[in-house]
């Protein structure tokens, strides 16, 4: 198993003929991802890295058959159109890689996805990688490095920073442990699958024994994970590291934002609620492998 993506996942790349699309199609294929088609309107008939290119998602599905997931690499202003096209064509999982997608576009994508029971990771995500199986997005940069950096194993990683997703996963691997799936949920305020949603998937995943989470100040994602632990919805051990201890407070939405967050969102609030719920808190990134080792000993993994 693993979550979100494995060897069988049939993947489409939207924007495959662009600079990023091309480079990441190469990474995905080289790593073992089942990339079955690409889409760039007007470039139908081409081939990129041996992948056939179509003018529309609909046409791609008609020709190559069902698509399980689409990785979107078009420039930010066009992400909404690309996402809606894929959702409309029946794709159930999207990965929205670009940074700087307008938040109102994300809200529209979310509403459409809801109606069609589709999910999306991102925007502003490095992607999802299940070691030894497949990568969706751009984690690892190149197949050689992605294979070298991330061991196969039973630890799930969920992170709000792209670079930290790779860093945590690399340091865990270097310490001799392995990973089930690593997820960069996306750096934006509104993302399709925030931490709590990823935790639900890890909880159900037979391959995952424990989870490492990197949180940041702002939003209530981490506090909601703590609530899940208290309610027994997340029973697997969780190691959490929250960034932004030194960052100044007050970079929240506004005063009205406090109504949503209800006093949550700060470094202190996240650490406190997670601790209370029984999470293991790391004070620094480099401390994570040590804590992971202790937790494994304690739980006899």
């Amino acid at each position: 198993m693993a979550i979100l993506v494995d060897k069988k996942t049939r993947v489409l790349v939207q924007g495959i003929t662009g600079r990023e699309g091309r480079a990441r199609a190469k990474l995905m294929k080289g790593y073992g991802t089942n990339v079955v088609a690409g889409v760039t309107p007007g470039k139908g008939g081409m081939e990129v890295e041996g992948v056939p290119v179509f003018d529309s998602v609909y046409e791609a599905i008609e020709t190559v058959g069902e698509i399980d997931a689409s990785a979107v690499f078009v420039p930010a202003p066009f992400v909404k159109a690309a996402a809606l096209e894929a959702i409309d064509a029946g794709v159930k999982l999207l990965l929205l890689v670009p940074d700087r997608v307008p938040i109102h576009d994300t809200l529209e994508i979310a509403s459409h996805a809801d109606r069609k029971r589709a999910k999306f990771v991102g925007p502003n995500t490095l992607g999802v990688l299940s070691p030894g199986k497949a990568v969706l997005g751009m984690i690892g940069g190149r197949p050689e490095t992605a294979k070298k950096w991330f061991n196969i194993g039973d630890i799930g990683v969920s992170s709000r920073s792209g670079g930290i997703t790779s860093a945590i996963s690399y340091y865990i691997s270097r310490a001799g442990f392995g990973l089930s799936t690593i997820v960069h949920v996306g750096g934006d305020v509104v993302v399709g699958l925030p931490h709590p949603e990823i935790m639900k998937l890890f909880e159900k995943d037979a391959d995952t024994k424990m989870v490492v989470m990197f949180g940041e100040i702002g939003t209530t994602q981490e506090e909601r994970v703590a609530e899940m632990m208290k309610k027994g919805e997340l029973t697997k051990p969780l190691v959490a590291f929250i960034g932004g201890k030194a960052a100044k407070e007050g970079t929240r939405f506004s005063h009205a934002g406090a109504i949503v967050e209800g006093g949550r969102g700060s470094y202190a609030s996240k650490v406190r609620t997670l601790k209370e719920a029984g999470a293991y808190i790391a004070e620094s990134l480099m401390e994570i492998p040590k804590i992971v080792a202790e937790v494994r000993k304690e739980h006899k993994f």
Partner: protein
Amino acid sequence: MARLYEYQSKEILRKSGIKIPEGMVVISPEEAKEAAKKIGCPVVLKIQVWAKGRAEIGGVKFAETPEEAKRTASELLGMEVKNFRVEKLLVEKKLDVERELFAGIIIDDYAKKPMLIFSSIGGMGIEEIAKEHPEAIVTHRIDVLEGFPEYKARELLGKLKFKGRTLVKLSGTLSKLYKAFRKSDARVAEINPLAITKEGDLFALDCHITIDDYAVYRHPEFGIEIAREFDRPPTELEKIAYKVEEKDYRGTFYFFQMVKSPIPKEKYIGFHGAGGGGSMMSMDAVLSRGFKTANFTDTSGNPPASKVYRAAKIILSQPGIIGYFASGSGVASQEQFNSARGLVKAFMEEKLDIPAVLRLGGNYEEKAIEILEAFSKFIPAKIEGYGRDDPPEFCAERLANLIKEGKTKVHKVRKIQDYTPPKGEYSFKTLTGKVSIDHRACANCTTQACVPACTYEVLKIRDGKPVLAISEEDAGKGKCTECLACELACFLHGEKAIHIYLPIPGLKEYREKLAREE
């Protein structure tokens, strides 16, 4: 989040059909007097700054006559408020208010929906209202595909027992506020207070809207200079940096100054991060070594070498820094040789005079460190490159040691020389600059190292000299990625014939001004 001034926010409301008091923006006491005459006294004068609680700091004043408006305006204009200087006032008709309400829309990240918040009590901060009168507040999450028609607003307001004409007017206003919120790509739109006058009309007395940074490009009408939230006006250097960011869509470049003039004694360093989480972690590492960061910079998302180069030039436009620290997550997916090339080109041009520690871990880090090592002998100050197995704390320690050992203590900003094309120049335009090749020098070249260095196959050899292998148009559109490999290869192995000119508009003048001020 890019903030709008009150008068801009009100203009958005007005265009959406929400009533606002009659008013005018003025920049001088004389204009204030004229405005008061035209609007009719009594009037209220409000300072236009990005700060909350203006009334408490004396930024909101009333005037009974045009003369008084003039006098008051001369007191308010030029006032210093939380890092801002008051340059504009809004002069508005003073209304007879019967009751104050609150209406606001924010984005609920968890529901992934805009959330309307309405309170039958207004005037004070919504946090206070929520604490003291929770029963006065109703909220509603809006599905963007359904919108927020008036009947939905009436349902919501019915819970607070609004009836009759007020109910109808209020529901119209809330529905219009939502439309304004969507249309302007707002992150927050608050009317506080929303006033019911003695005559039973509804007016937005104060309003505050912030725009989504990522959507500012869709709204040139707001005249937003830098699309992000500032608690002070942007500095000149930030404006220069923002122009670079705005004009180059490849990757991210973010530059923010923490201090206007770094004092060497306080151990300020130039900080160059990559990626949000990694930058924060790296910053913690240098701060815990007793350093301060003069700026915060982030180049990430696989930026071209040219962007990293410009970032370094801008960071090095801060006199008084004593070191340069570049570090990201350590395990970056982006191609790190781009960062290395951008940095060494900048450091050579600047004749770097302060030590630099560059932690370029991740994809292609070996190549990146190799580049740093190959060029370190052409850079006056000490530079050291590190990778993913070297923690940020260790790298910060290295910087501390280099600074201790170093001879040059404080960075001096150099003047930028004008670019003069050589006589035998062959050149072509790139996306943001120009590649200039001195073909006379190429005549003596035995290596022609530039062509194999260019992995994008932009160059080829014709008659023993490098020329474009693709059309000029394609090169200018981005096929030449400005990776700087040809220039650096030519520098090491050839005749130093290639120069890639990457202008940074305004930086030359800025540095000249610095020199004059010194």
